[in-house]
């Protein structure tokens, strides 16, 4: 009984280092648990008969362990409990848009008419799947104000590759093969220069101005007949809207270049700004960011890329096309209207399972809900910016878009590094923000709360950070360097991991005695 209103938390409960605690349950590697004979799947006996494998011999053994079903449930449940997730805590990774993943989307993706359909079934038997792709494509075009969209790219970076391939193909088609340079702002995601370089472009960096935006004068000065494109993120990686974007687009088009927009941060503006109104030629959309398909511990994503009329003819195959009477077909060959396509990017028609999730999310929100969601995402970020600005140092004057950027000036002299602050935040029960990105800001801390967080969570997060900053100022650098202390593992030795990589389990070497 607790009628006195006393604190229900026992005093001195400092569960920490290495202590075995209930609900922090270890599980060995599957290879250390079981041998090759166990199985958790009952299958009928294969009928006897000689193998008919042609010239290839049957393999003798593989070395795979097996788990019975209860063992498997326990192993993976225990593993899952060692992860932070949006379902358990705010996950404010800047530039990653870790928003709520509705379970309706999971149910929709598993409808047999979407999930239990083969990509090469006769078209007449996959009309529902094709209609769903077309419906999502329609929404993406409407929300971006763009005339075309290529649905097949497998993730954001793949969409970026598709967009830049379309640009290179369009330039070649015009005979402008001298356009070999791509301009990339210093603050860009690493994928932008990686994509441009992968396609054989020279990457030229464009500096930022003191306001964290593209230096318009430097950009204009760099334009010329050798420029193929600019790759610009908007809102940019500093969480700021590029206010001069229309001028940038106009100057670029005047000089004959294409405008690739990295849509990683579309969540800030969806329903409130159509990129097509800003003069862009191509933009990928990370469905796992803006449209809430689950991040899944690192994929799968989906990266449809919207295209201008100038680029649409070069879009990758296959494409879903209307075939009249509400029916759809797949254009799989580079012929007719698709003769200029640059080709195929992936085995099949795109990340269907992500399309259906995104479509369920979009239909749930509708035009009004998306408008509100973007507004709430921006409101939440600005609220954290306002609450934290008293103790942390914002890199640029506000307002920000959907993420708030701070640098490490407020830690100067404390002996606490950005990394230490982030690790200490883990012990407070929060996932850290993005650190050391964008690279243009020293010791960057990029906080993206998304619209999914209630005000009280934002307040708790801000209170925790404010408390940590006070402790840093009070000279507790050693405690920060030792954080986190309450996690299943403490800081991991990444140097050893990289110097002598151990990338797989191997059976233990026989002991001397056993070997002899």
């Amino acid at each position: 009984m607790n009628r006195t209103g006393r604190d229900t938390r026992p005093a001195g409960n400092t569960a920490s280092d290495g202590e075995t605690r209930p609900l922090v349950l270890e599980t060995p590697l599957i290879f250390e648990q079981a041998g090759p004979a166990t199985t958790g799947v009952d299958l009928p006996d294969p009928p006897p008969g000689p193998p008919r494998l042609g010239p290839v011999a049957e393999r003798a053994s593989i070395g795979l362990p097996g788990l019975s079903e209860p063992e498997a449930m326990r192993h993976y449940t225990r593993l899952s409990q060692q992860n932070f997730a949006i379902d358990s805590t705010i996950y404010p990774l800047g530039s990653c848009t870790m928003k709520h993943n509705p379970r309706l989307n999971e149910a929709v993706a598993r409808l047999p008419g979407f999930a239990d359909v083969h990509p090469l079934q006769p078209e007449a038997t996959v009309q529902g799947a094709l209609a769903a792709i077309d419906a999502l494509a329609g929404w993406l075009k409407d929300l971006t104000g763009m005339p075309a969209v290529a649905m097949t790219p497998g993730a954001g970076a793949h969409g970026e590759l598709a967009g830049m391939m379309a640009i290179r193909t369009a330039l070649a088609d015009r005979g402008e093969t001298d356009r070999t340079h791509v301009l990339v702002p210093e603050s860009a995601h690493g994928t932008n220069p990686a994509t441009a370089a992968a396609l054989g472009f020279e990457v030229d960096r464009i500096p930022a101005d003191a306001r964290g935006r593209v230096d318009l004068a430097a950009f204009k000065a760099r334009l010329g007949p050798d420029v193929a494109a600019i790759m610009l993120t908007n809102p940019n990686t500093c969480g700021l809207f590029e206010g001069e974007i229309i001028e940038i687009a106009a100057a670029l088009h005047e000089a004959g270049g294409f405008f690739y927009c990295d849509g990683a941060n579309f969540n800030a503006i969806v329903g409130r700004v159509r990129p097509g109104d800003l003069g862009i030629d191509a933009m990928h959309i990370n469905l796992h960011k803006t449209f809430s398909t689950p991040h899944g511990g690192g994929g799968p994503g989906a990266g449809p890329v919207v295209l201008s009329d100038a680029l649409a003819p070069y879009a990758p195959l296959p494409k879903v096309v209307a075939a009249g009477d509400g029916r759809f077909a797949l254009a799989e060959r580079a012929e007719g209207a698709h003769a200029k396509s640059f080709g195929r990017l992936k085995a099949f028609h795109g990340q269907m399972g992500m399309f259906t999730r995104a479509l369920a999310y979009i239909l749930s929100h509708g035009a009004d809900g998306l408008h509100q969601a973007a507004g709430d995402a921006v409101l939440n970020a600005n609220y954290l910016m306002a609450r934290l600005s008293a103790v942390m140092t914002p890199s640029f004057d506000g307002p920000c878009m959907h993420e708030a950027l701070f640098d490490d000036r407020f830690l100067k002299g404390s002996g606490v590094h950005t990394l230490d602050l982030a690790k200490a935040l883990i012990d407070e029960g929060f996932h850290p923000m993005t650190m050391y990105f964008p690279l243009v800001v020293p010791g960057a801390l990029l906080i993206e709360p998304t619209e999914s967080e209630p005000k009280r969570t934002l307040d708790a997060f801000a209170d925790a950070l404010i408390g940590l900053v006070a402790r840093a100022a009070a000279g507790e650098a050693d405690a920060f360097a030792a954080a986190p202390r309450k996690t299943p593992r403490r800081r991991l030795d990444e140097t050893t991991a990289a110097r002598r990589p151990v990338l797989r389990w191997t059976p233990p070497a026989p002991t001397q005695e056993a070997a002899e």
Partner: protein
Amino acid sequence: MRYLPLDDADRAAMLATIGVETVDDLYRDVPAGAYLPRPLPDLPPHAGEMAVMRSLQRLADRSVPAGSRPFFCGAGCYRHHIPASVDYLIQRGEFLTSYTPYQPEVSQGTLQMLFEFQTQVALLTGMEVANASMYDGATAAAEAVLMAGRVTRRHRAVLAGNLHPHYRDTITTLAGFTGFNAVSADPRPDGREDLAGLIDGETAAVVVQTPDLFGNPHDLRALAEVAHQAGALLVAVVTEAVSLGLLTPPGAMGADIVVAEGQSIGNPMGFGGPHVGLFATQSRHVRQMPGRLCGETVDADGRRGFVLTLSTREQHIRREKATSNICTNSGLCALAFSIHLSLLGEAGLMRLARLNHARAAAAADRLAAVPGVAVVNDGFFNEFTLRLDRPAAAVVDRLADEGVIAGVPVSRLHPDRADLDHLLLVAVTETVEDEDIEALARGLAAAAA
């Protein structure tokens, strides 16, 4: 709106803290005229869960699910039974709603799983190391060709004629943009193709699929020797991962890189995605390998733990010098693969593979008895090629109308090869029952009559 926790009182309080009047004020950097203060007109408003499910159920019902009738499609995507526990476990929120494990202290679940996945893939393919997965088998194959270019410092790839045409096209698209010359041999449905004549001293990669598009398993040892003598890497492609439960793996036949489509294990067909690309190679090439890698290390207390490692190869650090522009892997599909493979274990996988092979053998014998139908292959795993006495595409469409999804006509994949248009690819997995095979046999007999 059920996904948005803020209410108007919250919003008002927050705006006051920020010191602006409205949310619109926060968008003041957007050029005037480009900002939409109201929701886009002409688009539907928000909808409840019941209404959304109802409308999408209606869409889904316009497709014919494979499970609803006799079904024989393969060609790089296979229908296998997925244990219920797999789909439950991957939907645990801690797996489903976490991100790339950049904070290893709070991501050991995903990291340990990736370490186990990498080991499973290495064992299955017979290679030394594997990465944490790629988008799909075709993109993995394209990345393998680029990797061979980095290793050999050459820019020519030889593609087997029996490579899946979608894989060939994915490779040639990427190759064309990256200064690679990719040459393709002609398809040989009987599997008797000889690539040796195409391999020269400029060749970086020889790409060969086993079992190939037509279902023929290949002994790669002689080809590996020719490739190695020319200084090229042998890239083996496997589009049906279950076959690795029965066939000698490419790693034991001299392959330098093995890429595979892992969908067959743990993942639904899903109209072609998301799937999971497997990528494995020898340790000496690991720094040229694309994609994420998980490695073992110790924490500050000396306890074993796992981290993403060798990330200096990746785009977020190397930028324009990265090994690949890829940043995501196919994490959740890799998890499904790993769970299903753990449940199967060696014994279960081998049994599953034998069962597939036995079902296919029974089907091949039954269908070969249909007048006007011949089996092209000498050997196969769970998929073989039929030669019909008329174009296969029309037969497939007709049988679809009659309630049998008969397989993939080769003309769908090789539309320019009129000489192949009588060929039908038929995949027979453990999900196919005897009466399904009978239905297909009857349908083919009726179509030929």
